[in-house]
């Protein structure tokens, strides 16, 4: 029998990782919702940001949170560059072309990282990497709690941006109806560029804040894109609120399944849920059926 404190501890860890997954998935689903592009390289952008953060820590002793000042604008710019050089050319092409091109970007990023850093797992040790705060029956790991807080703040900021600002509304309008948006004067190509850059920046933010407690290698991107994909589908592709709920759900499922079943079966269970959702609610758990 597993004690209540152990369950609480698992739920807490699920909440923390789930928040980070939600941020990654929201970047992915924002890009899809607006541009209709399924960006399979999204998880590898998380990986690339982890490496940049790692390098900044190793070379300049820059704390991962401080390095955000560099990492966020850098990846917003990289996202814009990637969009202009590659994605823009295939935005009107069929989904099969999106898949092949973004998989190509994935391979490029993975091999570039492999060339630069080799395949070993690397990590950093900050002053708070192993610190935790004991609250009642549970220990709150500070690095993970920080990553979760930053992720949730970013998700909230993005939601407010999309709901309240003129640019945010233009993004929603272009996502909802591209032609309608063009006809009211929205510069749709520019909105696509900004959305893709914002999605890339969300991936980079998630990558940077998990560096204090995660190991990075050129191959960690696969794990992130699989989760992001499952979460985005669970939440209804293109839905920010759905991705938040889906991210937390996957975080909890992962934590509880490693507690009750087996840690190595975590991904299998996540995918079993995906298959069940696709069979019975293909528009996602939180999405709405399109008529």
């Amino acid at each position, binding site marked *: 029998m597993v004690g209540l404190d152990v369950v609480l501890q698992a739920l807490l860890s699920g909440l923390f990782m789930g928040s980070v997954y939600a941020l990654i998935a929201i970047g992915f689903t924002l890009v899809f919702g607006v541009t209709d592009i399924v960006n399979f390289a999204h998880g590898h952008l998380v990986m690339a940001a982890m490496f940049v953060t790692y390098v900044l820590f190793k070379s300049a002793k820059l704390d991962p949170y401080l390095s955000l000042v560099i990492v966020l604008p850098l990846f917003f710019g990289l996202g814009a560059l990637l969009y202009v050089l590659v994605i823009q050319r295939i935005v009107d092409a069929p989904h099969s072309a999106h898949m092949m091109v973004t998989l190509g970007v994935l391979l490029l990023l993975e091999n570039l990282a492999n060339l630069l850093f080799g395949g070993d797992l690397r990590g950093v040790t900050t002053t708070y990497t192993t610190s935790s705060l004991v609250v009642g029956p549970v220990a709150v790991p500070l690095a993970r709690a920080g990553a979760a807080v930053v992720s949730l703040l970013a998700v909230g900021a993005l939601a407010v941006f999309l709901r309240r600002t003129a640019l945010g509304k233009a993004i*929603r*309008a272009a996502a*909802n109806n591209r032609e*309608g948006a063009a006809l*009211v004067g929205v510069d749709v190509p520019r909105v696509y560029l900004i959305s893709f850059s914002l999605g890339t920046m969300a991936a980079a933010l998630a990558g940077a804040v998990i560096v204090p407690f995660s190991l990075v290698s050129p191959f960690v991107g696969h794990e992130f894109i699989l989760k992001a994909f499952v979460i985005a589908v669970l939440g209804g592709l293109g839905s920010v609120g759905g991705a938040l709920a889906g991210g937390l759900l996957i975080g909890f499922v992962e934590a509880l399944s490693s507690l009750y079943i087996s840690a190595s079966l975590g991904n299998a269970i996540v995918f079993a849920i995906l298959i069940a959702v696709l069979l019975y609610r293909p528009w996602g758990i939180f999405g709405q059926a399109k008529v």
Partner: protein
Amino acid sequence: MAYGDVRVLHDVALRVGQGEIVSLVGANGAGKTTTLRAISGLLPALEGRVTFDGEAITGRAPSRIVARGLAHVPEGRQLFTNMTVHENLEMGAYLPRAKTAVGETLAWVTGLFPRLAERRTQLAGTLSGGEQQMLAIGRALMSRPRLLILDEPSLGLAPIMVKTIFDAIRRINGDGTTVLLVEQNLAQSLRLSHRGYVLETGRIVLEGSGAELLANPHTRKAFLGV
């Protein structure tokens, strides 16, 4: 003008004078929608020229063209169905010139279509067909256009709603907005219009005042079945 490799418009010369309501009529597939999409920049024209207020707008992006004062209510309305009625209208005034006058324009639009004020917080996708058409026209008007282009505003609407829409078009024109109207509803649209053009398989075959075209034997035979 072409879709893919098939040229669909051949010889379409039409002029809309300030303050007019001009109808472009013709059967399905005649090229009416294509003509409008070429004017508002949704489709790139192969050759030819569109000038608006003495300025060439051919080949400009739709967002640039609407900024010049030309608003297009497209086929299928293309509303933001996941956004509220109010958000749709607000998006209509997206450009700076329109945004400064948003309150005043909103009062004008809800005066034309009081139903839109009642449905303010409802999602556009949940409106009836007639209400969606009102919203599509209202959203276009929010940009304070000098020329309003309407593609089949009466399509699929109940007769009472068609009358509401046509009355609104007359009032919009009366308030000083020039209107280019595409309709299959030939009799009603020609009765409303100062002038009209008849389009057949990508060519303009007839032009004249609304009353002339209504009385023309060719139009009557081809479109009214009399």
